[in-house]
């Protein structure tokens, strides 16, 4: 009997495939199954009752769910765009500095080292209406004599969360875009100068197209863990007050662990997973397109 010979690449990938199936794939299949049951943590026997798509219908007809879903998409869209623009701006500024650039680059990476929970607590502290840095500063400088309820008012709380999110992730964009700026060949830039392009034209038609792959790498990396924002939101407001900053993730957490309705929470979890996968595939596609445009594909 001849031994079955697996191709080498498969053997090399096998450990990764095994561990990912054990930790991600199988639990996800379980959660897919349990999303069709009325499973409650407190009553294990409910796992074996099949109720079809009831949980999904319940989620889809729940106005709170759609509000949270919309808020999540809104948060992601605003945060990713602002991060990208600020990161681009920051990278361009730092690129122009001739003295002390290394130091600046190191400072720029500062927020990347902060754990998202820590960012949550840090900004909960800074935006605290009583002892927070922001209110203290505003009051001391005489801009306002009342305590602004940063984390209580719906719009202000959303703003604070987006601020915290942007604070942590802008540096990821800035660092990667800066790496892109270093990699731009000099010749086309000089040719543009000789041909009399304005700085804006040079930027728009030469610099930006070269930077696009780098911007998409940053977006692809970010899209892999957009749900990290959960940590920040859970600490800062936990979806409150009164669901005003509820995101799809905090809603899942609360339904699953506090209300112990695992089946229902898993159904919502699946909807959030598809949201994440959509973002990821979208940016990886863009990344590939940008690569081929530069002739780096393959």
């Amino acid at each position: 009997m001849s031994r079955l010979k697996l191709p080498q690449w498969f053997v090399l990938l096998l450990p990764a495939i095994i561990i990912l199936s054990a930790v991600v794939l199988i639990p996800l299949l379980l959660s897919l199954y349990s999303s069709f049951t009325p499973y409650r943590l407190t009553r294990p026997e409910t796992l074996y009752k099949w109720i079809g798509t009831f949980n999904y219908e319940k989620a889809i007809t729940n106005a709170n769910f759609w509000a949270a879903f919309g808020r999540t998409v809104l948060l992601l869209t605003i945060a990713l765009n602002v991060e990208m623009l600020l990161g681009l701006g920051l990278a361009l500024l730092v690129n122009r500095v001739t003295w002390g650039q290394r130091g600046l680059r190191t400072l720029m990476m500062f927020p990347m080292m902060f754990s998202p929970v820590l960012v949550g607590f840090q900004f909960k502290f800074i935006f605290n209406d009583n002892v927070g840095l922001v209110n203290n500063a505003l009051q001391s400088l005489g801009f306002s004599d009342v305590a602004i309820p940063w984390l209580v008012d719906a719009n202000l709380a959303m703003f604070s969360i987006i601020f915290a999110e942007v604070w942590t992730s802008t540096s990821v964009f800035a660092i990667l875009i800066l790496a892109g700026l270093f990699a731009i060949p000099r010749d086309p830039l000089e040719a543009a100068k000789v041909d009399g392009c304005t700085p804006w034209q040079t930027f728009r038609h030469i610099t930006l197209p070269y930077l696009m792959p780098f911007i998409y790498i940053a977006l692809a990396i970010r899209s892999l863990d957009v749900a990290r924002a959960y940590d920040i939101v859970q600490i800062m407001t936990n979806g409150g007050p009164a669901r005003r900053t509820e995101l799809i993730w905090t809603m899942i957490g609360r339904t699953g662990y506090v209300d112990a309705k695992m089946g229902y929470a898993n159904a919502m979890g699946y909807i959030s997973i598809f949201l994440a996968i959509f973002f990821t595939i979208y940016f990886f596609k863009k990344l590939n397109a940008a690569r081929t445009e530069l002739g780096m594909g393959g």
Partner: protein
Amino acid sequence: MDINLRHRIRARLLKAAQMVTLFIAMSIICIPGLWVVLNSFRPTVEIMAKPPVWIPNELNLDHYRAMFGGVGQGGVPVLQYFTNSLIISITSTLIAILVGMAGGYAFARYRFKGKGAIFIGLMLTRAVPGVALSLPLFIVMARTGLIDTHIGLIIVYVAMNVPFTIWLIDGFFRQVPRELAEAAEIDGCTRWQAFWKVEFPVARAGVASAGIFAFLTSWNEYALASQLTRSTFSKTMPVGLRDFTSEFTINWGGMCALAVLMIIPALILTFLVQKHLIAGLTFGGVKG
């Protein structure tokens, strides 16, 4: 006014505006962190003072002392959390590196059908939101008795880090010319020897930075750890931060002290690898 002078003034103004913008941006990046560090040294009375005290009257190590003072005096078992974090992060990083090296090498050196699809598939496992994944993992781990253990969290973190280490390591091996290994094989090395003696040393710095990235991810992870750990025996530091909050009050000073303790290792490690990290992410991505 002649045109040269006007141009020179405009250039100066532009330069000044750039510096001011950069200064403001850098302040926004640095101040929140520095604020946390500052408050870890201030007595609680001063933190809570109204009107605020801007110039600290007194800086001391009280919060650090309370933190390491053990349970009972409002202390949080910080040392225990620190060791838990360290054990879990280091073990999971080592395993993730080994698994990632095998996988990354496969992607960098072999051609096979469905390579792109498998790559995206592996990446997608990373995109699953932690909360959504924590629900079924909680059920599975509760059944297998892995909840509230180091091993449970280690396995989860390995899986979390593998996709990204594969991405990074793939990028680094791609930069090692294929001819190097081929030459070694012609000289009589086996493929295994060629890998360890030729290709690995060249890509070593890259592998190390992938490791540090994995370490930081485990070190900072919260969404899964907060559900899969229950007691002081397995709680990691990000989860431990919550010990400083009670129903209505938060011990800000103590929390800031723990935060500083969390940031220091991360800070050192990030500085060590920043160069390689950027190179790895961009090459892996651009020359895909």
